[in-house]
């Protein structure tokens, strides 16, 4: 049985192909402005990488903010899985004992409490505002004129605590410019940025309750500065993060497709 999960996100579109509970192939492309085109591109690349034809895929699920485009793009019957369910199933695929999961994507952040079957028992979402999502850190990296990859590592070198506006990316951007003018070191500004961002996610995780094993998914979970800040603020030494955390929801969607629910 081959299943596929497609996560059409605000910034990237991910496709995961699974066979009998194992990942056969996964592909990520930039979503761009034409979601349909991106979905088709990722789909074809995923089929090629797994060396299967579209007809061999038994069941397909779509998720993410562009999930409604998926059916139309692929012109095939598929289940639409809500983001929370996809995240929950993805987390328990990688870490079966996980009871709390947070996913931080480009424009949204979400957290859920899981039951012992990997279903979401409670959840919180931020989809109203870019603070607390990847767009926040991207905007700050632009203001700091530092590549995103470097900014995360830079922040690990600082032990200063500079309070920063965590409510609004636009206001935080002016604060970053202000800190630059005051000759604050880049590493200290980077840490302030990650601390601010983490505080939004941590408060969301706290709202739904923290359990021992916390899983972090989504593209932002690749950022070492962010991971460190979340661990410190939650008081949890080791967050569980899969190797390519941005595929979490696509994996979850593929699992749901395989379960046939």
């Amino acid at each position: 049985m081959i299943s596929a999960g497609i996560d059409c996100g605000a910034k990237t579109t991910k496709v995961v192909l699974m066979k009998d509970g194992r990942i056969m192939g996964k592909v990520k492309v930039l979503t761009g402005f034409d979601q349909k085109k991106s979905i088709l591109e990722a789909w074809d690349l995923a089929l090629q990488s797994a060396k299967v034809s579209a007809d061999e895929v038994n069941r397909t699920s779509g998720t993410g903010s562009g999930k409604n485009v998926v059916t139309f793009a692929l012109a095939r019957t598929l289940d639409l899985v809500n983001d929370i369910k996809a995240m929950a199933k993805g987390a328990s695929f990688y870490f079966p004992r996980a009871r709390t999961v947070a996913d931080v994507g480009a424009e949204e952040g979400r957290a859920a409490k899981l039951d012992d079957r990997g279903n979401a028992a409670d959840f919180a979402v931020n989809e109203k505002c870019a603070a607390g999502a990847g767009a926040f850190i991207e905007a700050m990296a632009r203001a700091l004129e530092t590549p995103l990859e470097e900014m995360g590592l830079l922040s690990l070198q600082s032990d200063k605590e500079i309070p920063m506006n965590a409510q609004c990316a636009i206001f935080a951007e002016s604060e970053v410019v202000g800190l630059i003018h005051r000759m604050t070191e880049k590493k200290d500004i980077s840490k302030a940025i990650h601390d601010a961002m983490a505080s939004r996610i941590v408060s969301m995780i706290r709202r739904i309750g923290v359990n021992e094993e916390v899983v972090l998914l989504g593209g932002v979970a690749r950022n070492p500065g962010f991971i460190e800040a979340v661990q410190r603020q939650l008081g949890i030494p080791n967050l569980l993060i899969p190797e390519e955390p941005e595929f979490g929801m696509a994996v979850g969607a593929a699992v749901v497709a395989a379960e046939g629910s």
Partner: protein
Amino acid sequence: MSEQKSPEFWRWTESNWVNPQIDWKKAKYITVGVDVGSVSTQAVVMADGEIFAYGNRRTGSDSPNSARKGLSFALEKTDMPETRIDYSIGTGYGRVNVPMADRTLTEIACHARGANFIYGPQVRTVLDVGGQDMKAIQCDDKGRVTNFLMNDKCAAGTGRGMEVFADLLGVPIVEVGERSYKVTQEPPAVSNTCVVYAKSEATGLLRKGWTTEEVLAAYCRAMAERIYSLVERLGVTPEFAITGGMAKNRGVIGRLMSLMGLEPAKTTWDTQIAGGVGAALFAHALCQKGKGREKKPA
């Protein structure tokens, strides 16, 4: 820095003004209100409760200097020395950094009092849309605050959000209002909850072939919707007056008024000086109660 070379589309016109009909030498009390906002600073000089001079300029990166420069800018076209001032009040976001202030007051109180003066005592609801926040204020016929609501958490619906769009679209901020009406059909609004989302939506719309004017219209509408939700939550009692820099943006205010089905009160004064006017009026009232500065020997 590369930033400084590019044209500054967000920049608005600074101005100062002096009332030729007032002779400061004859005034009993000279009072000053300095409103140091996040984006602009206004210093208003009053002679016996009438506006004698004012200056309106951009707030720099340090507040004490902005307040000082604001006051010298206001007095630039007059021959009055600063020592003549009987009392001065600081207000606004940067009010704790007004070195010459004898005391400070919140900008909520000052805007209500100022709107009462520049629009008239019939004003009952004041909307102030400033650089980094917006407030809806209810007041009585003396300009005393009876209730208010504000958003200072987020740039959506504030002047800062409009500056971001002016820069994004390369349209000078003072032209935004006019150009937003140069559309054949009014487009639907972009996101009104977050400027960052609105920005990425706008970039997408431009790529889809929307004109700059259409995107401006969609953003002005989003701003109007956002401001409307705050005003509606507070409740509106006419007359309705608008203060702050956004009052000058016809693109937003026109759309807001059509959502509200109301006409705003009119004034010939610069709407940005309302907070400073209120502060100077409070200072005048204190002088009348004998609380002015000790008179220096002549």
